[in-house]
């Protein structure tokens, strides 16, 4: 497989993927707000900053080497530097700019630059997901290093395995429409690794740490749901029937995710909460991500509903096992990502998408796809967990000051100690 000059650009497909890329970009601020509303007042800027900074750093790293490591070359385990600094990504095609597609993606009907930009937004948001787990206690400088190293050492390789046609998991037939494995399982298990190295927040779980602004969280939820149309339906890489199906599956799974969470919550604690509605919707969205363009019919209803319910149960695990996954990245993204990636082994349907070479159990394809999905999530979990641990331990050992703020600084909050700012100033100063 060689890199191929893209010639047949369709303006409608291009328009849709451009929009989808913008929508996915918008999700990172959305995530920042979603998380930011959940932390205490003294840490909200710390949270926002960790997320926004991903837009700063990862964008540049992606352009430099990330994209090329993820999509360049034909090695099964890691890309190469063919596209480093975007060389050849733009190229001319009879006077028009088009550019070279990564190996195996020669049938693109959009400029490769658009594909690169679209994938960039995934690279930006994936490590940002981790910030929810580590809220309120990591030094900003340590986050900067973790972020950058993780993007290169974990994200690009895993994306290559699963998304690139030459990746070993892709070639085995594992399916991941929009990042259930690459994004959610990957970030979720990495969050566990970071949390284990970092330790619990002072006072957790005894001291209550209620969300300082649920309206902020709900602004974030709205943006996430909105942006997720780009995330999932954009992964069709064109404005076509697959995109349409993915679009519908996305919103349906978000809805049943919300319902699933709320029903269990109402039964167990007596109230349907706003944060539960938001969390359930996100759980549904996470779970449908790998499936979005591969399933149809009742599948999204079930996938979303199951994810909503199970994630509700899963977020309590941390109290049982004693790890402080502050805003439930593991309970929602890891668990939700696993649910979606594995259920895809049951529901994948070739009549929805011809790219489904092995169908799921319920479509008559037997357990083979399910097995591949197990391998894909298993390999991702092991690799991501181990490498993330190593990065964190190395940073802890080598960074003067370590990766965690001092006790006093934790008490005072990240906003003042890391950024010299307060989130909400009174006119009285």
């Amino acid at each position, binding site marked *: 497989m060689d890199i191929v000059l893209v010639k047949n650009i369709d303006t409608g497909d291009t328009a849709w993927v451009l929009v989808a890329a913008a929508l996915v970009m918008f999700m990172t601020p959305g995530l920042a707000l979603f998380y930011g509303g959940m932390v205490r007042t003294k840490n909200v800027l710390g949270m926002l900053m960790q997320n926004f900074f991903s837009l700063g750093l990862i964008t540049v790293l992606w352009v430099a080497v990330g994209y090329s490591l993820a999509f360049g070359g034909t090695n099964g385990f890691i890309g190469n530097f063919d596209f480093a600094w975007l060389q050849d990504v733009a190229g001319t095609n009879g006077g028009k700019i088009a550019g070279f597609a990564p190996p195996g993606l020669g049938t693109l009907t959009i400029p490769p630059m658009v594909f690169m930009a679209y994938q960039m937004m995934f690279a930006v948001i994936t490590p940002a997901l981790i910030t929810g787990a580590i809220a309120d206690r990591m030094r900003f400088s340590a986050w900067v290093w973790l972020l950058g190293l993780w993007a290169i050492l974990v994200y690009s390789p895993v994306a290559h395995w699963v998304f690139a046609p030459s990746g070993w998991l892709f070639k085995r037939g594992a399916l991941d429409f929009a990042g259930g494995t690459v994004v959610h399982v990957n970030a979720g298990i990495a969050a566990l690794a970071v949390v284990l190295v970092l330790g619990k927040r002072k006072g957790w779980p005894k001291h209550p740490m209620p969300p300082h602004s649920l309206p902020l969280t709900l602004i974030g939820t709205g943006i996430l749901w909105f942006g997720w149309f780009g995330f999932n339906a954009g992964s069709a890489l064109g404005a076509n029937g697959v995109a349409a199906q993915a679009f519908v599956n996305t919103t349906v799974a978000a809805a049943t995710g919300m319902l699933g969470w709320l029903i269990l919550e109402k039964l167990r604690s007596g109230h349907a909460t706003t*944060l539960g509605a938001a969390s359930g919707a996100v759980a549904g969205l996470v779970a449908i991500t790998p499936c979005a363009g591969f399933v149809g019919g009742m599948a999204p209803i079930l996938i979303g509903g199951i994810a909503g319910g199970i994630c509700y149960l899963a977020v309590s695990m941390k109290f049982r096992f004693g790890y402080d996954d502050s805003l439930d990245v593991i309970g929602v993204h890891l668990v939700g990502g696993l649910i979606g990636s594995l259920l895809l082994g049951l529901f994948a349907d070739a009549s929805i998408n011809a790219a489904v070479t092995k169908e799921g159990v319920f479509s008559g394809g037997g357990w083979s796809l399910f097995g591949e999905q197990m391998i894909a999530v298993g390999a991702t979990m092991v690799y991501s967990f181990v490498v993330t641990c190593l990065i964190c331990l190395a940073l802890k050992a080598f960074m003067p000051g370590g990766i965690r703020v001092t006790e006093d600084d934790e008490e005072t909050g990240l906003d003042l100690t890391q950024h010299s700012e307060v989130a909400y100033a009174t006119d009285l100063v």
Partner: protein
Amino acid sequence: MKLVTAIIKPFRLDEVKDALRELGVNGLTVSEVQGYGRQRGHTEVYRGAEYEIDFVPKVRVEVLVDDADVTRITEKLLEAARTGKIGDGKVWVTPVESVIRVRTGESGSDAL
């Protein structure tokens, strides 16, 4: 000169203010506080984690009054603040040695 301080339920503030105004009270100072007492707080639930919040929002009203008016004003205030349900709050009176109006420097009763 005395300072009458009342901790009341927030939604009685309007009644209290009106009642005191009727008695000719010209001014008072109000602030938001959190009360802990016999009235139970509430439970909040966030992602399955239940928090018992012991504090209940209350309003503190402070009125500087002439010695002679203390009883009259206190009684009216009690009446206006009362709902009869637990958590209605407290009123207490403390001695004040001097009061001055910032604008004019007047002191004592003239400062009110």
